[in-house]
């Protein structure tokens, strides 16, 4: 599994959302893309998963150019996105939501197997298997969205703002799930505004600023990088740091 994005450009009308970004995702890694609102994070993900038309550049997956392929073909190749805001199907049961994740698969026995896997990953979903997804809490819906994506047996799991709008405790759960899924062999590309949590969990990170990659490096390095700290982690530079109060 290897994903390479080369000089990707996307425009909405006349507005350039991505001005030629390049990035790579290696097998077995968690890679994160951080940046402010409107930096182009979601656009990048939508382009990879085939929801967004690309102006120029290439998205190469395992030596195959998948740029401009229909979303269905991209899912078939093992790239699956958990969309921002979860987007579970509210009037379907938890079970139906999970089964729809396996839409392109036909082997019933394998699907049942994966259902068991998802239920062990998220016991809460098993308890609520017949409940309508719309009645779940935000955190449970996020778990369902992740579970639904896993049902397609992805090789690359793309997550768009999984912590958005969730309580801090639930956010911690979500990040531990990301780690767990990654340990089970699934490569993860993660987008977050919660840069702190994302960089802690990620092997490698990219910082996106108004459509271009501003910085890249291992997660730990970016976490201590002064300009990242200032812009995304809410910390001030050392030179004008005031004495901090004890917490």
């Amino acid at each position, binding site marked *: 599994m290897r994903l390479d994005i080369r000089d990707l450009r996307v425009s909405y009308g006349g507005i350039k959302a991505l001005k030629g970004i390049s990035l790579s995702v290696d097998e077995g890694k968690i890679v994160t893309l951080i940046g402010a609102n409107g930096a182009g994070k979601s656009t990048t993900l939508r382009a990879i998963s085939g929801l967004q038309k690309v102006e120029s550049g290439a998205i190469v997956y395992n030596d195959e150019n998948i740029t401009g392929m*229909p979303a*269905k073909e991209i*899912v078939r190749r093992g790239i*699956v996105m958990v969309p921002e805001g979860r*987007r579970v*199907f509210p*009037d*379907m049961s938890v079970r139906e939501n999970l089964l729809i994740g396996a*839409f392109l698969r036909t082997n019933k026995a394998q699907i049942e197997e994966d259902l068991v896997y998802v239920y062990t990953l998220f016991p809460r979903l098993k308890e609520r298997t017949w409940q309508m997804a719309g009645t779940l809490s935000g955190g449970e819906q996020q778990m369902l969205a992740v579970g639904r994506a896993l049902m397609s047996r992805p090789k690359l799991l793309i997550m768009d703002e999984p912590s958005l709008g969730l309580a801090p405790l639930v956010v911690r759960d979500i990040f531990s799930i990301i780690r767990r899924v990654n340990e089970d062999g699934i490569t993860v590309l993660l987008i977050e505004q919660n840069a702190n949590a994302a960089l802690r969990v990620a092997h490698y990170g990219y910082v996106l600023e108004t459509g271009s990659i501003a910085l890249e490096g291992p997660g730990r390095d970016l976490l201590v990088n002064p300009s990242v700290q200032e812009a995304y982690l809410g910390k001030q530079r050392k030179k004008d740091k005031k004495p901090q109060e004890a917490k």
Partner: protein
Amino acid sequence: MGTFLQHLTNALSLGSLYALLAIGYTMVYGVLRLINFAHGEIFMISMYTVFFGLAIFLLPWYVIFILTIVVTALLGVLAERLAYRPLRDAPRISILISAIAVSYFLQNLATVLFGGRPLTFPQVPLFTDVMALGGVRIPRLSILVPLIAAALLLMLTFLIKRTKTGLAMRAVARDYDAARLMGIDLNWTIAVTFFIGSALAGVGAIMWGMKYPQINPTVGAMPGIKCFIAAVLGGIGNTAGAVIGGLVLGFAEIMLVALWPALSGYRDAFAFVLLIVVLLVKPTGLMGEKTTEKV
């Protein structure tokens, strides 16, 4: 008692026909958020197909019925492909106007091709014979129509609730992007929706023709608009609602005529009054859910 039974079977069969057509409106609304104003004209073309098959080419009725259903279904798919799909990302009003255009196009095409003079829908004795039931004479059709409609509705319910295609249709109706991210083919699913909705209109047209055997290029307009009302009455987007809306409208119309014969001239107006009342009192319809607008 005898006349009441007659009114009852009449109401039930008219209601079932409305239901079959209303489902087409509601299904298309579900996946496209579009009132397919061409639905009534697809229904009309379907009646002409039966006429030419039976009266001109003298094909056996079962061949022509199947052929008609297929032709009607494909016509629905074609309308979607040519007139709606290119406008899917356009503002919703554009696709609505396109639907009105398709409707008038088909009406005028039928006038040019088949002429404006009314034709008589051919009779199929198996369906149109009159039989005696409990002392009253009832056309066999009045019994068959509700039965056929019920069978089709059961099949449709099974398709929507239990099959992969149905799952895809429900997902597309709720959220395009999320459905695409599951690997669902949007174009295919929408085409299938048009196919099924139009096929049901085809069945409806065949039975309508035997019940009201007159064909002209605007024959689909009134049933079309009434079934749209039935779909709104039941809660547009909701299949069960469309069936209930169709039955309610059918019963209301027949009973109005039966109980107050003096008002029978207002039969069509009554449907529109019903629409206005529904929109004022319960805009979501009888079974309507509060749908969150798609983003």
